[in-house]
């Protein structure tokens, strides 16, 4: 009787220990996942979030004007660091040398519009689909795309039907076609 009681206690202890181990591993793994998200958020999503929650730029402010293509592209390189792009993305297609002058707001507007089109193409091509969708949902809150016609354009990027959605997609597609031609002429790499 005592032997069977002792065996039953041993089994209970083992079962309890196994259950505790399982629970502990579940807790640790969930904490690990949470830590991973907190420690290493996706840099593109973080950039997009910062743009969406940051201040807008005044489109009528021309106090910071870049009259030469060199000055404009230098400023663009600096501003581009805060703009998310899909893998293989770049801003080589923007024709700073043909603009004949552009404000800082104008530079930012070109970069953000160009980036939005690159994410729309990524989504259409099935590249980074989840991230593309999350970013395109935020694009209408990016600076220079929050108001007016450009906001309507940004909102149409996530639509799949309608005349405006078709036109917006065509605009982005033709933008990329020009970019590829321009890149070939200059010996640079177009965005993917």
């Amino acid at each position: 009787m005592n032997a069977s009681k002792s065996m039953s206690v041993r089994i209970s202890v083992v079962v309890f220990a196994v259950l505790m181990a399982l629970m502990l591993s579940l807790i640790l793994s969930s904490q690990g996942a949470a830590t991973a998200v907190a420690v290493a958020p996706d840099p593109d999503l973080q950039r997009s979030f910062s743009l969406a929650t940051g201040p807008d730029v005044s489109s009528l402010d021309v106090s910071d004007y870049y009259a030469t293509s060199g000055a404009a592209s230098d400023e663009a390189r600096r501003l581009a660091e805060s703009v998310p792009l899909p893998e293989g993305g770049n801003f080589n297609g923007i024709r700073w040398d043909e603009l004949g002058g552009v404000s800082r707001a104008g530079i930012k507007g070109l970069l953000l519009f160009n980036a939005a089109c690159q994410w729309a193409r990524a989504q259409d091509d099935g590249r980074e689909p989840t991230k593309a969708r999350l970013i395109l949902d935020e694009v209408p809150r990016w600076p220079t795309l929050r108001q007016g016609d450009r906001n309507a354009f940004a909102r149409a990027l996530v639509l799949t039907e309608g005349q405006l959605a078709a036109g917006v997609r065509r605009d982005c597609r033709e933008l990329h076609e020009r970019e590829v031609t321009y890149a070939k002429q200059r010996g640079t790499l177009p965005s993917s």
Partner: protein
Amino acid sequence: MLSISRSIAASTGLLRNPKACIAAAVTAALPASQAHAWSYTTVTNWDLVDYEVREYGNGYTIGSTGDGAAYYRWSDSPSKSTRISGNSCGDGSLYGLDDIAANDTSYHRLFGGFTGLCFLLRGRTTQSGGMYNHDGVLRR
């Protein structure tokens, strides 16, 4: 002349249908431009210079109710000749432009596009010196 009109009206059955007659008269009286429901943007206090191209606003799109083109006119008489252009919102490339002479306040077609196309409004003076605080209208 009156008899020709009567014969045309009679042959098309307009005299027998007063409503159709009125509708035809109204349609004929409307200028072609009113067939479109244009989108207008008022441009205020735009400063243009001769040494660089200046932008206005951060971009506009071609709507679905116009004729697919973008037009610009000065609403206060411009003191200098100007060159106004429409450029891509995504890469700055030129879609089209037109030169507007001094004192010209009529609409000028900048380029033809399509519904949803985003463009930048840009301009400069084409004669020496600047032109400050001038107003205009963008139609598309």
